């Protein structure tokens, strides 16, 4: 388990996290969502031991990652957004770097390289950004580490590679492993991340399971915002893309059904209309006041 207890972290005098408490249990792929600068990367680096908190404690499977013990580091794999690779081939990389990780699965790594169409005789520094990313992800998923921390893993990947990554990540789910994926491209990974953690303003704003979202929220295209239990809505080409609270009593809801709660809308709602989202999640969606879009603009929140 990865546990943050009253953890505080600041860059200089600018606080990023203040008294953060969060437990990430094994067996799940956590999606870490937040605006630019919300601290997603810092959160992952703190869990990896690459950054040190100024207050509180972090524990990764019982070890303090800040101590950077060899065993602790071998049990964590952090893939940065822009991974660095040495000027050697993948087989040389296995020999030189993977040998420090006792649980590294060479056969799985080679299989993943093959699946991701990465040439194993090519010098790693000659890989493109996307290829370096795929290599680092393959290394992470084969490392045998119990904590996988992936920073924006889909950035730079082409569409087929994103689909491959989703499949590989889903396959990597393990009851003894915590996977944390930070992303601002929610739709790339929305089918595999569960639960979702939304960080904003130095704290965890929401921690939402797919079950909870399915029970309380859904998404529709609407032509009008009148008379609906709208949590949050964004204008699109056809009218409104709206996140609605499920009514407590069965009844008709206007508009074309587009499926369960869209994670991107949930995220935007968490930032732009947190009180409405909270009310909907606790089952008080029926009591929501009429939705006024001008009061809940995500762009304004993002620019703050």
């Amino acid at each position: 388990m990865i546990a943050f207890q009253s953890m505080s972290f600041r860059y200089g005098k600018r606080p990023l996290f203040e008294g953060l408490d969060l437990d990430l249990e094994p067996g799940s792929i956590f999606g870490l969502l937040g605006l630019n600068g919300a601290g997603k990367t810092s959160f992952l680096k703190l869990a990896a031991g690459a950054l040190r908190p100024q207050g509180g404690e972090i524990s990764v499977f019982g070890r303090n990652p800040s101590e950077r013990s060899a065993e602790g580091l071998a049990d964590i794999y952090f893939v940065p957004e822009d991974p660095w690779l040495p000027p050697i081939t993948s087989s040389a990389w296995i020999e030189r770097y993977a040998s420090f990780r006792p649980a590294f699965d060479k056969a799985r790594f080679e299989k993943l390289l093959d699946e991701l169409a990465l040439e194993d005789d090519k010098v790693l520094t000659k890989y493109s950004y996307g290829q370096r990313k795929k290599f680092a992800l393959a290394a992470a998923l084969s490392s045998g580490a119990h904590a996988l921390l992936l920073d924006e893993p889909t950035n730079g990947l082409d569409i087929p590679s994103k689909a491959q990554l989703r499949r590989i990540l889903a396959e990597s789910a393990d009851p003894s492993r915590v996977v944390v994926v930070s992303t601002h491209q929610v739709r790339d990974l929305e089918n595999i991340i569960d639960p979702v953690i939304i960080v904003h303003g130095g704290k965890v704003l929401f921690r939402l399971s797919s079950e909870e979202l399915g029970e309380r929220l859904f998404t529709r295209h609407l032509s009008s915002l009148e008379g609906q239990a709208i949590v949050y809505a964004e204008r699109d080409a056809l009218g409104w893309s709206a996140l609605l609270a499920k009514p407590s009593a069965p009844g008709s809801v206007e508009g074309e059904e587009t499926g369960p709660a869209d994670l991107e809308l949930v995220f935007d709602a968490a930032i732009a209309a947190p009180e409405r989202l909270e009310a909907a999640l606790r089952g008080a969606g029926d009591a929501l006041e009429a939705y006024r879009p001008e009061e809940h603009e995500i762009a304004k929140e993002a620019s703050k």
Partner: protein
Amino acid sequence: MTNVNKNPAFSFRRCALLVRNRLYDEAGSVGIGAAVMVGLNLLGLILSRRAWLNESGSDQAWSFAVILGGLLLASQAFKGMHDGKAGSEWLLLPASPLEKYAAAAADYLVIYPLVASAGAALASLLLSLLERALGGAGGTVWTPVLAGGFRAWGEYAIAATILMAGSASFRKAPLIKTAGVVTVYVLAMSLLAFIGVLIFFNKNAEASDSVIRVEGLAINFERKLSEGAVKAETTLLDIARYGLAPLFALLYGYFRVFEKEARDEVQ
């Protein structure tokens, strides 16, 4: 694939893996240096049927090349640690600072001198045989003994430990900066010694057989000491030079690496 054991404090296996990685990383540079040395001799054999660097008077070029190569490598020992993205890899590599430092020390103080000396001796021998086969005298086959044996290694090791400490301290131009610091230190010590001489060995000292002669800028200090006192003085200086200086450099370098691991954050 080789896996590591689970020793929490220090793992010889992890240390060996780190040494092996260093050797892989340096093989290219050492190979280029060796190729230059052998190439020069082959050029001599082609042009004048003599392996130039095996000739009397030039044979110390082998010593120079071996020592210079080691010192250049030692001055870059922790280059990766200071590098932005590669530095992240260094910090998050599952090995302790002690293992990382010990691997560098083993490489530059033991493995490199042995391998480079053996390689240079072998190359010198083969070139000598080749020269003889071409009708030449064969010149002098270089061996580490010719370089000064253990004493030369000692001098090299002192410089290597100091350069390793410099590499752990300075992010950019560690060789120049370390040389600068050492020069400033030596000058400062010389100045202190000079002041000490002026204070403690003034004209009163003549009564106790000490003489100061000032000749332009050169200052000679002559003392009449017993044989035992001279031996004791030499021993003390040797301890300071061969013991305290490298020990200080090793400890300082290690704590710089440890501090980097303990404090530095991956950007």
